[in-house]
């Protein structure tokens, strides 16, 4: 599946066509009955038109599709970086506990009845704090392989924060706060407003930038630490930068959509199958595929029934079987 330089780059470029077609198609779906002609007319008329069609297309569907693409791309990129960095294709961006931290922050904020903006902000901060705790703990342990220590610390901290979430759920009022907490944890894009996009996009962009700039050097992290160092890379610093990047992107994404799993795990795999593991090609492929996949899942979530199907459930329903298939397949060939 590996092709040298040029045709793989072509594949990345070729990927953007179907993804953007899928994005456009997503505009045509939704509970509000709009024919494709009406949708196109509303798109053409611009955001300042004042009618229901314009509101639906510009205020509701556009931010939602935009946010879906942004979040899917962010999660997939973070997953691709982590899978290379941890030298394990079965790693997801949650491995250092960012989702558990964000979940605990959101659960606490909902439990205390704080306003929406506070819920998002506290979720974001919670995600950052969880990873900071993991990095801090891992930094104190010097005896073992640093990557292994990170993973174990991430599992421990993630479990700790998950236990915290469970505790909040027990204490919450079952008829008032508990449903809100549960829905938040399942993930969804139905409450996304343009303001969320304006906040999350720069954060995700700030996280993506170092990854883009250092895309060649990231490849070297898949070698052993010794080899990478001997090839001229400051391994600890590069790892640190990637962790900050991926955490920023994932925390920002989770704070506006809740916990949407499997994208960070499965999409980088699919991207790797298409364009190979070389990160300067893998990154754009993962961004495109992740964004497209989440938009497709969200389109299903909002049009399959009158009520919203939680996004996390849909991605799991698709992601888990794909993951198992990849697992079986990788046993027979290369990753």
């Amino acid at each position, binding site marked *: 599946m590996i092709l040298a330089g040029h045709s793989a780059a072509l594949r990345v470029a070729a990927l953007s066509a179907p993804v953007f077609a899928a994005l456009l198609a997503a505009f045509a779906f939704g509970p509000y009955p709009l024919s494709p002609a009406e949708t196109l007319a509303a798109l053409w008329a611009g955001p300042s038109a004042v009618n229901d069609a314009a509101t639906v297309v510009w205020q509701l569907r556009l931010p939602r599709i935009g946010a879906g693409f942004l979040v899917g791309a962010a999660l997939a990129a973070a997953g691709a970086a982590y899978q290379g960095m941890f030298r394990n294709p079965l790693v997801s961006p949650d491995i250092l506990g960012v989702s558990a931290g964000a979940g605990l922050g959101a659960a606490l904020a909902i439990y205390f009845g704080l306003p929406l903006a506070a819920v998002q902000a506290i979720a974001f901060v919670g995600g950052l704090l969880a990873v900071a705790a993991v990095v801090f703990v891992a930094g104190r342990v010097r005896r073992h392989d640093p990557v292994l220590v990170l993973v174990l610390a991430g599992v421990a901290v993630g479990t700790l924060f998950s236990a915290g979430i469970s505790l909040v759920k027990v204490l919450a009022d079952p008829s008032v706060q508990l449903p809100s907490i549960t829905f938040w944890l399942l993930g969804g894009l139905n409450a996304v407003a343009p303001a969320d996009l304006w906040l999350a996009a720069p954060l995700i962009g700030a996280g993506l930038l170092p990854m883009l700039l250092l895309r060649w050097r990231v490849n*070297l992290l898949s070698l*052993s630490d010794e080899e990478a160092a*001997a090839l001229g890379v400051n391994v600890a610093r590069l790892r640190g930068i990637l962790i900050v990047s991926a955490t920023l992107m994932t925390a920002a994404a989770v704070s506006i959509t809740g916990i949407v799993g499997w994208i960070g795990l499965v999409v980088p795999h699919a991207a790797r199958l298409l364009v190979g593991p070389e990160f300067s090609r893998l990154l754009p492929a993962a961004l495109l595929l992740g964004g497209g996949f989440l938009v497709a899942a969200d389109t299903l979530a909002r049009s399959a029934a009158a009520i919203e199907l939680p996004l996390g459930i849909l991605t799991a329903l698709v992601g888990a079987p794909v993951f198992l298939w990849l697992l079986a397949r990788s046993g027979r060939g290369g990753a």
Partner: protein
Amino acid sequence: MNVLEAHGLAMGYRHRAVGADIDLALGAGEVLCLLGPNGGGKTTLFRTLLGILPPLAGTVRVADRALADWSRQALATRLAYVPQSHAGLFAFSVEEVVLMGRTARLARFSTPSAHDRGVARDCLARLGVGHLAERVYTEISGGERQLALIARALAQEARILILDEPTASLDFGNQLRVLKEIDALKRQGLSILMSTHQPEHALRVADRIALLKAGRIVGQGPRALATADALADLYGADPADVARSLPQLAPA
């Protein structure tokens, strides 16, 4: 002139010293072979010489400058490391693997250019495996992988190579191939420090040998140093057995 030197080096990890009193010198354009039993400290020594493990005492100098004064990237343009070939985890192409060697010569945010790709292909061609460039690294044989890793080190355009058991787990044919390449590289002026478990290989390619046992250099000098007695002492074997297995050894 010595391109790589260690003086009074004590090496080890924070709570465990592995070796001490190590004096090692690699001259320009020569091949120095390190011989010694398992657990003798070869890996630790290489890590220390590469600057990956801080020395517990003593100094290491590369190209007449203290190791501590070299930045990681600058060091990689002078000193290249070839580990034992490993299976590899991700399906990079051989060319991409060799291109990783160019990283030290790239600016911080750049990706390899056409020139870098040309250098990579040249290095592969020099080793006679240019046809492998498009193949997947995880799908080629062990010997081919070892050659690819040597090509990666060459792509660094470093003049000093450290090879860690380059013929381990290779079949006979591949072993000969690698040894021939080491010879060729020496003739091109590179300085090579290599370790091996096979004294006959050392006798074939080395200009000088060093004997490392239990973290100490118990002998360092020309090939003739490798007598049956010396090797028997090094590996804890019977000198008669050694002489029988290696008839080309210098007489005691």
